[in-house]
């Protein structure tokens, strides 16, 4: 009797500590993002959502009856979840506090993302995780595979097999899986996915994609219009907002950005080094790297990460407007344009990077590797070689959800930014001298 109550007491203490620490770190990063100058109007909506989820510890803001479905990867088609009358949330986590708890559960070499997820689920305190009626885990790496098994102890889990190539047969197989997924979703929500509900879902997500492409177009046309950290925050908030609400919020951001573009306003008057962030996912609150880049006088001009543009940029193109044609469009969109390193031949990613470098006038690439994220680490060498040919400097930053290496990272990022500044055209330097 006494031991049980003592255990309970300890658990309550632990939980309290966890909540305190979790809210503190989230609050800190939200503040840092807010403190960055040059946020566009309408940015607050996205910060509020992140605050609602991580600081106030609430579930996603949706009507009571609606169910939420957790997803772990951009390869899960959100249209299907909306069609079943549920709301998808992205559960890939960047949380430091949960990472420490997950450290004891998952093996040492597992990636921090998976450790954080395990930590959250173990404590059972995060409403976003606890509210999920089902979790969909596409098996994109070994860690995801095992976490799917672990999560299975706590809630309903569906794994999805991601093929290693993108041949026609693989697409066919993925379509079959989508049908299985549709059936699972139907049994959980009780709603039937019909032609009508699926096409309505297409409009819902398509509208968000439309706003995103406007946003990216604005970003591309006039550089220094918005800070990359803010853009990444917007993309992160998508994970916890229904697509239509997100689209409306992004629209007001787009309007203020286009006003800025017309007036010729910029985030900074200086010509800051333009940096592309790629590699392992950067999930709120693990925003230390983009924040460091911007605080050290660089600008994140583009990001090629799962939580960023990658998952949303390519729209599903319907070439056959039957129900099955729409499912195929979803399968096609999920696999073919995705430059995820889970695919055996991923030369596509190099082309994608080159494209982003050209479009956003990138001067340097920071390759972020989460410790234990093997698939991304594998690709570093080839990307370094390829970008070397283009004379674009690349550095690899290995890190996890620890805040202990911040100083180290700061030094490396600062050096990298200085290096790019040195490489900038000489005429600019002479101008500065004249001013002096």
């Amino acid at each position, binding site marked *: 009797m006494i031991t049980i109550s003592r255990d309970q007491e300890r658990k309550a203490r632990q939980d309290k500590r966890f909540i305190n620490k979790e809210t503190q770190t989230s609050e800190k990063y939200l503040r840092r993002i807010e403190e960055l100058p040059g946020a566009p109007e309408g940015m607050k909506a996205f910060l509020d959502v992140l605050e609602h989820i991580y600081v106030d510890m609430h579930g996603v803001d949706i009507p009571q009856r609606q169910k939420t479905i957790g997803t772990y990867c951009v390869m899960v088609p959100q249209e299907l979840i909306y069609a079943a009358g549920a709301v998808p949330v992205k559960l890939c986590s960047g949380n430091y506090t949960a990472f420490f708890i997950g450290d004891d559960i998952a093996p040492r070499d597992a990636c921090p993302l998976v450790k954080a997820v395990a930590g959250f689920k173990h404590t059972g305190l995060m409403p976003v995780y606890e509210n999920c009626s089902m979790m969909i885990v596409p098996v994109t790496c070994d860690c995801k595979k095992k976490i799917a098994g672990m999560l299975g102890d706590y809630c309903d889990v569906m794994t999805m097999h991601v093929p290693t190539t993108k041949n026609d047969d693989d697409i066919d197989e993925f379509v079959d899986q989508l049908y299985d997924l549709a059936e699972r979703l139907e049994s959980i929500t009780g709603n039937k996915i*019909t032609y009508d509900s699926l096409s309505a879902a297409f409009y819902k997500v398509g*509208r968000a994609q439309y706003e995103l492409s406007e946003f990216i177009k604005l970003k591309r046309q006039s550089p220094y219009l918005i800070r990359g950290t803010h853009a990444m925050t917007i993309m992160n908030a998508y994970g916890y907002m229904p697509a239509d609400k997100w689209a409306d919020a992004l629209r007001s951001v787009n309007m203020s950005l286009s006003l800025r573009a017309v007036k010729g306003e910029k985030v900074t008057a200086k010509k800051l080094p333009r940096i592309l962030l790629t590699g392992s996912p950067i999930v709120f609150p693990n925003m230390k790297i983009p924040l460091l880049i911007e605080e050290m006088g660089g600008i994140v001009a583009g990001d090629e990460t799962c939580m960023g543009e990658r998952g949303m940029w390519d729209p599903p*193109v319907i070439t*056959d407007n039957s129900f099955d044609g729409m499912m195929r469009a979803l399968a096609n969109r999920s696999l*073919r*344009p995705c430059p995820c390193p889970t695919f055996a031949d991923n030369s*596509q990613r190099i082309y994608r990077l080159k494209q982003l470098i050209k479009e956003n006038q990138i001067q340097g690439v920071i390759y972020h590797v989460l410790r234990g994220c093997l698939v991304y680490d594998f690709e570093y060498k080839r990307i370094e070689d390829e970008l070397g040919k283009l004379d674009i400097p690349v550095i690899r930053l290995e890190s996890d959800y620890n805040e202990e290496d911040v100083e180290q990272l700061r030094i490396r990022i600062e050096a990298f930014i200085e290096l790019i500044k040195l490489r900038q055209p000489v005429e600019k330097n002479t101008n500065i001298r004249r001013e002096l």
Partner: protein
Amino acid sequence: MRKKKRIIAAGIICAVLLALAYFAAYLPFYKFGEGSYATSLKKIFSSEYIKTVAPLFIIFAVSALGIVLIVCIRKKLMSKGRNSSVYANRYSVRGAGKAPKQKLSLFMMIRWALMTAFTVFMIWGGLLSGLRNENISIPVFSCPANTVQPTEASCYFLSHLNVLFTLPIKNIIIFFVSTLLFTILLGRAMCGFLCPMGLIQDIMDKIRKKTKTKGISANEKMYSAFKPIKWFMILLFIGLCFIGGNFCDFCPAITVSPILAGLGVSLYVSGFLMIFILIGSFFKRRLFCNVCPLGYLVGLFHKVSLFRIKKDCTTCTECGACYEACPMGIKTIYTEREKADVTEANCIMCGECVKCCPEDNALSLTVAGKKLYTASRKNVMSGYAPKDH
């Protein structure tokens, strides 16, 4: 082992085709009496025309029946398998929901208008205008068996080379020069813009889209099965006249233009084949074009034709939408990452890939270096734009 099986299957299909083509004259579909092989404007507007068009009605009726039957059987068969959810009551109720659709582009409107206009022109043009010019031959599958059209399609003489060589030398030269000229000028753009056979198949596809029926999606295996058939069709097309057959008795295209022009052409195997093609093109867009001998012969000159599909490889994200949309199954269009020119012998310039491409300027259809139709994200996303924009 699998390869061996495939070769055997291809061999059997080719042998069946050969037998069908050779003995075509013994398998009548619809026979006309003597003397109905003449036409005039008067005949078209008289009740006699209905009699001539009768076989066409039979063909359409049988194909419609076939399509309905196939859809029903498919639904029944599939409702039990693993993919039960594929067909289980997911159809919309009376078309209440609409799949997102992009706005009709000017290019597509022009293409449809041209195709329709040219079909009318090729079939009734001669009768309406009284113009007749047997000297200009256009390599299009529109039967020249009717001599009432303003220009001739080259398919008759190409499939009856023995007849061609009995003509005076002047006619032979005119035939080859005009055919080659059009081949080089337009290339396979004729298939996408002018061919009446193409129009009929496109209409079948439109009907399928309107009824929201599932079609056959792009699959490499299917397209590789078409390849030997296509080559054998070319062999038949050119060679059948020398071994005593008549390609016209076999060719499905004959059911289109001569009958509509009011000629009482007796149909043999071609009638049966047309039913097959109509049903097939309902489920697989432009089925016949995939095996069309004349089209492929024209396509062989794709290196010199003026119509080209250009790709900007730096903006492509390899989303594969173009490949899914392509009725001819050209895969290089989405895998290509080096060359700027992705025109292929199979490409019929229908512009479907450009229409579906979500990346600005990634794909474009050019004529003599001038861009006619360019991919744009705005077009693809036009269905999702908020109303007040």
